[in-house]
């Protein structure tokens, strides 16, 4: 079987999905290949644009000049985030937030975490010291410890629901059902709640958490919000599913569990990619490719003692010097130089030093992105995914 696509996106994470959606929006025939589920499923589901700073948009100017954010204009950033909001909203998972100004959410250990865009169930999750919180926990849930929160925040009350599954996933599945939710609400109604806000571990259903939260809000007559938990993270999963749904709605063909088995390329162009189905290869013809395979964790880059490899096309990579320079002394210090490793690109997101002209690169595989140091993972993925796709669409 051979098939023609205008663009094949490799990588099903935030940047790949964003790129695929952006191209489909521009009327392109797009396929998206992914080896597996992306690490965004393990995330809090919040979008960090530049969480190391208070005002992300303004602070971008101060980033090192090679940071990929400098490849895009302010308008592109706004358009990319706007498109993201629209897409997740259409999938029933509205996000709010403003790249001009970061906000905070309460974490599972009671500290504040800075982020930029949040799902509707975390809109109320910014808690200053004045706010008192009532945490609702589930007795058998193993991965959530409200005592961390109450220890750090005087005035915190905790209610514990005796029923419910032992995992976040199990609970979210239960909250999808009317039966369980009603039983839970009936119990909640009897609780004496005097605090300013009511917090839940992020398990309020995997389908329509906003509706469940609204129902609870109506009952307790206070703002209600979710606190992201250890993985499996339900908000991360919701985010991924919402974008996947959006891509599918726009006609993107998704190939999951698919690895690139072979590549056909001419002097300057990638011409076709093969997927493997058992021992047989299926060829997909293509006009352009978006590489969004992520960094080390996602498997886009792999590291040996002397070099860093890009695993699909073996594109030239940037590595910050020799092994001695890769790490800081302190493991927990943010910003190990190795984080700068990746693919260097020109202003159109094409890889530098490669003769292949129809590849466009986006997301955390980009050199100098240092997503950990600047806390810009999802934001960088969305913004460069959008920009690389726009650049790619311009060549077709």
């Amino acid at each position, binding site marked *: 079987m051979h098939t023609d696509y205008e663009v094949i996106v490799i990588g099903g994470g935030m940047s790949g999905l964003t790129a695929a959606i952006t191209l489909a929006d521009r009327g392109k025939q797009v396929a998206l290949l992914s080896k597996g589920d992306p690490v965004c499923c393990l995330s809090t589901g919040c979008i960090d644009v530049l969480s190391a700073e208070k005002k992300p948009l303004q602070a971008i100017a101060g980033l090192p000049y090679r940071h990929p954010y400098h490849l895009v204009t302010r308008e592109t950033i706004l358009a990319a985030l706007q498109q993201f909001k629209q897409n997740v909203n259409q999938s029933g998972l509205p996000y709010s937030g403003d790249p001009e100004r970061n906000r905070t959410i309460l974490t599972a250990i009671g500290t504040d975490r800075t982020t930029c865009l949040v799902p509707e169930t975390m809109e109320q999750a910014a808690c200053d010291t004045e706010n008192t919180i009532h945490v609702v926990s589930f007795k058998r849930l193993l991965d959530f410890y409200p005592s961390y929160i109450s220890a750090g925040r005087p005035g915190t009350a905790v209610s514990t629901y005796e029923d419910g599954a032992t995992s976040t996933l199990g609970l979210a*599945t239960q909250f999808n059902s009317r039966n369980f939710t009603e039983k839970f609400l009936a119990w909640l109604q009897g609780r004496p709640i005097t605090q300013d806000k009511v917090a839940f571990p992020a398990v309020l259903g995997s389908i329509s958490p906003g509706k469940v939260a609204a129902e609870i809000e109506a009952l307790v007559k206070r703002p209600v919000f979710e606190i992201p938990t250890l993985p499996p993270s339900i908000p991360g999963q919701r985010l991924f599913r919402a974008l996947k749904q959006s891509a599918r709605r726009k006609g993107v063909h998704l190939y999951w*569990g*698919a*690895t690139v088995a072979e590549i056909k390329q001419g002097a300057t162009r990638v011409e076709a990619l093969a997927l493997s189905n*058992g021992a047989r290869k299926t060829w997909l013809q293509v006009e352009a490719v978006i590489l969004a395979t992520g960094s080390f964790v996602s498997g886009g880059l792999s590291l040996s003692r002397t070099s860093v490899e890009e695993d699909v096309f073996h594109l030239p990579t940037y590595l910050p010097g020799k092994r001695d320079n890769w790490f800081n002394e302190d493991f927990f210090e943010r910003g190990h130089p190795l984080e700068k490793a990746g693919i260097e690109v020109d202003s159109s997101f094409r890889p530098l030093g490669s003769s292949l002209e129809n590849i466009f690169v986006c997301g955390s595989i980009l050199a100098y992105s240092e997503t950990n140091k600047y806390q810009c993972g999802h934001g960088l993925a969305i913004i460069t995914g959008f920009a690389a796709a726009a650049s790619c669409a311009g060549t077709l």
Partner: protein
Amino acid sequence: MSVPFEHCIRCTLCVENCPVFKVNEHYPGPKQAGPDAERFRLDGQKIDEAWIKYCTQCHRCQTACPYGVDPAQIIRRAQLAYGRTHRRSFSAVLFANNYYLGLIGSTLAPIFNRVSRLGLVRRLMQALGISKYLPFPSFYLHSLRISRKHAGQGRRKVAFFYGCFLNYNQPQLGRVMRDFLVSTGLEVVLPPQVCCGLPALGNGDLKTALRFAKKNAKVLGRYIEQGYDVVYACTSCGHTLTHDYPGVLGLEKGELISRHSFHLAEYLLTMIDEDRWKGSFGSLRKRIAYHIPCHLRASGNGYPTARLLEKIPGLDCRIFDEHCCELAGSYGFKQANEETSISLGKIAGDALLSFEPDFIVSDCGACRMQLEHFAGIPALDPLEILLKSLAAGPASTQLVNASTIRRGSRGNTGNRGNRDGANRHIEGYKGGANQQPGGRSTGGRS
């Protein structure tokens, strides 16, 4: 394709995707039952043996893993090792030999169908560990096994691996598939075949699985060497042929078979691409919830059926691949798994109903059975939709008159829908998966 279990970084993405883990707290999930436990197994240490019995082998963990680890495969091998050293339950032995059950069932169809629905018999089956929430599928005297084996003439030749479900439970649909393939200009044979071996694998019986697989491999290998392509319709058989024959079963001809076997829809797409067949699809104004069988999802090859359905003008088709139907072959037929199977079947059914479809479509007979039961609307094979559309198309052929296919369904016992003059037989073809000889009694949601 998969890498050693040591590559697992314990990220839990596989757990997030495990249907059983969602509703059954006794199952610790694929991470723990797979790579985590493997460290202990290799050390000869004892781990909870119940874990591996909860796994349905839906392979969702495998498609989720971004590092190339295959928890399903690790668990599969543990299941087989367990099966070698332990006495298997009555239901496990019965379902491993599902092929023979079908053979008896179809040979004695009129009696078997009645008897298997008697209250007493059902209680007896329950006592033997067989769940009764889903009625046993009906069998037909005129199985595919004894249908016309060779039809059509063409430069391209295909060997149709129809599998047990079509053979015994929807033979008329199987004959329609055969005739349809012929109508596209192919020469079609129905090679002698037995069960693909998956039910035996799923019930921890490697010996039986190998016996079946070797038989098939010998025949299919011979056809392939004579220039035939193997075409399958059941995605679970397909996954077994293409992945398990060269993989866990390690058959000599496994690679050859894997390279030359195609899903029906994939084969049709290839023919369209290569201009060997013009699918002149007519308009079909229907809403279709297309449930992706887990084994199609696991093939890593995209969804060819969806791409074919996309070609039908007017068809509003939505893909649903987030849920396993959780019948999982014989898994849901076992008493021990009943609760899990029912909860997940309802979840999958509800998801489909949220689209308010006219029909459910799925490539897998077991999925269709389960989803029709829980969603309470007809679940069709994709070919039934394609035929409806082709019948409405500009080049509608006499052969593929889809309206006759659907006639006689939904509790209408009068019309036998018998269209194949050469193959007159006593059973009526009824679309959908759960039809009862005596009218429809399985619908409705429970």
